[in-house]
């Protein structure tokens, strides 16, 4: 049996963070967070947990390592219980351990809620631990950099305002080779929807913007993208525990949509961004629901395909398997629509088991992949269970409508020799749809 202390990982952000801590500062910060931001939820979760261990089997980390210190309740024991029992009198080294557990050994995937008879939200408890670490300035360096970027530029990847517009022009230009009158309409007031993406798309995956623009143009939709900050729907501050920046980002995103007076926001194929917009930002900002309706790509493609705005010329060959991203499935219940879309565009599905709401996480989400190279190995080894699931399907293609999932699955596919290609819905739709020019 090991504990977090036995697998300490050096990270520049964490080391620098704990070097600045004093016991007084730790205690004061913890008390401030517990008394100021936490209430009945945390209290009942800590108190009513009967320590039955049923949640262990929920967590892919536990299932992969079979070590109690990776079980959801084991993580809470090593962090929150200790913090509360000691009333905040903990050492800087202990804070390092809390950060390592909360940022890099929990994807906030919420699978454990399907296992806990008392409905204890371990993901929430881990978020509170992150919040404390954030306030103490003990955050992994890589993810903190993305949060800094958010705070300075309102996007995750230090994309400058002109670079953003440039990138869109560039993709528009490229796509016009294929569809001569294609447009990526910027700042079009009163459009039916605003399309927002995560900053890694303009940075590394411009092809996805190209594809989306192509699909929307082919379907003849009235859409727009903002040329100004608010275009990035991702939110790493949500994962570092920086609720203030998290809320600023969400406000900016909603305000962009309001400024353009669009009817709704359509979000690209990203899970965590959807969580931020759909579930987190509005609460912190004091809105019960969203000031502008939000729709994830899964649902939007479903609309386009069922209404016949997009037609599939030839289905994608061979059966595929479907990965259910936590944030749109456990987070928004899109499992049926996802399968309907995949069935409309692909030649049959071979399901993984367990699937749908019970699906194992990709192990990249919750900001874990964003914590970068120091923690990469734990993350990949910690998801052997998912690799086995993928292998068991025996198919060559996995559809995963989420950026993070692509990152996580890509890593385990290589590490465990799964031999599978990964696809976004957009990839397949773009490839298989009836293309106007082809007529």
């Amino acid at each position, binding site marked *: *049996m090991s504990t977090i202390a036995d697998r300490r990982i050096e990270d520049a952000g964490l080391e620098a963070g704990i070097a600045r801590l004093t016991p007084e500062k730790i205690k004061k910060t913890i008390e401030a967070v517990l008394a100021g*931001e*936490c*209430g*009945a*939820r945390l*209290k*009942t*979760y800590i*108190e*009513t*947990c*009967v*320590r*039955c*261990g*049923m*949640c*262990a*089997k*929920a967590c892919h980390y*536990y299932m992969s390592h079979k070590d*109690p*210190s990776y*079980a959801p*309740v*084991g993580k809470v*024991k090593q962090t929150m219980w200790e913090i509360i029992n000691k009333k905040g009198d903990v050492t800087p080294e202990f804070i390092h351990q809390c950060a390592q557990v909360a940022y890099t050994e929990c994807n906030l995937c919420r699978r454990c*809620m*399907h*296992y*806990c*008879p*008392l*409905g*204890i*939200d371990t993901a929430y408890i881990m978020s509170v631990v992150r919040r404390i670490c954030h306030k103490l300035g003990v955050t992994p360096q890589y993810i903190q950099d993305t949060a800094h970027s958010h705070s300075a530029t309102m996007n995750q990847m230090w994309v400058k305002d002109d670079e953003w517009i440039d990138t869109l022009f560039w993709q528009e230009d490229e796509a016009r080779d294929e569809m001569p009158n294609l447009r990526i309409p910027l700042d079009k007031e009163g459009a039916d929807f605003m399309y927002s993406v995560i900053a890694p798309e303009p940075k590394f995956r411009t092809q996805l913007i190209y594809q989306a623009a192509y699909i929307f143009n082919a379907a003849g939709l009235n859409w727009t993208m903002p040329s100004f900050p608010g275009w990035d729907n991702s939110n790493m501050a949500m994962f570092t525990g920086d609720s203030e920046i998290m809320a600023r980002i969400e406000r900016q995103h909603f305000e962009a949509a309001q400024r353009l007076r669009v009817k709704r926001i359509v979000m690209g194929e990203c899970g965590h961004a959807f969580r931020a917009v759909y*579930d987190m930002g509005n*609460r912190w900002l*004091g809105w*019960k629901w969203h000031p502008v309706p939000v729709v994830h790509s899964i649902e939007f493609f479903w609309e386009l395909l069922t209404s016949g705005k997009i037609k599939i010329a030839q289905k994608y060959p061979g059966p595929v398997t479907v990965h259910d991203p936590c944030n749109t*499935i*456990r*987070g*928004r*219940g899109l*499992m049926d629509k996802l399968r309907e879309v995949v069935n409309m565009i692909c030649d049959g599905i071979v399901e993984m088991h*367990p699937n749908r*709401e*019970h699906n194992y996480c990709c192990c990249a989400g919750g900001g874990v992949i964003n914590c970068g190279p120091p923690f990469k190995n734990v993350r990949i080894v910690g998801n052997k269970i998912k690799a086995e699931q993928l292998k068991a399907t025996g198919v060559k293609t996995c559809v995963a409508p989420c950026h993070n999932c692509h990152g996580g699955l890509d890593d385990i596919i290589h590490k465990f020799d799964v031999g599978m290609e990964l696809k976004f819905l957009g990839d397949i739709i773009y490839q298989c749809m009836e293309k106007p020019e082809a007529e």
Partner: protein
Amino acid sequence: MNQLYDLAVGPLTWLAIGVFVIGSLYRLAAMYAMAKKKDGPYLTYMSWRFSLRSIMHWITPFGSLGWKENPALTIVTFIFHICLILVPIFLMSHIVLWDQFKGISYPALPDGAADLMSVAVILACLYFIWRRVSDPTVKFVTSCQDWTVLILVLLTFCTGFLSYHQIGSSLVMTTLHILCGEAMLIAIPFTRLSHMIFGLFTRAYIGSEFGNVRKARDW
């Protein structure tokens, strides 16, 4: 000994029931007030329909993923909890005391059935104890309090069983039993046993959040 019995069966019983009832109500009220003050956004998602939907699935044996994946524990814990709640309420010996001291009387379980159920609870406690020492995950998270409440339940049922079967001195055993039962009642609002009071609400909240916001099952 008679005096101790008198104390246990009289004033201490009322004290225990009072602490249990008032303590539980107080804790619920205080928690609700705190939730209103600090967890407002979360309270707004509460929904009767989704709360009950979730609770119904979770009070059904094997009605949820968690139960299905832990079959042995599921069987034991359902038997344990059902007997744990039914026996003290419908045990003839208990009803006789209500009748004697308060003139309250209602139908009782047959003695044989109640005895079997008591044995079931004792065996379930032994199973829980075995899990706590042998299952590495459970062992890792077990603390003193988990042992205390488990032993308290076990002692209450053991002493009850022994006094019913008149093993050992009736007076001593029955007095011990009553004291244990009272300790257990008093412990409910203030220890891990408070899952009895809060458990339905934590489940109801997650049920509401999954049903209302996330449009997904939580079982």
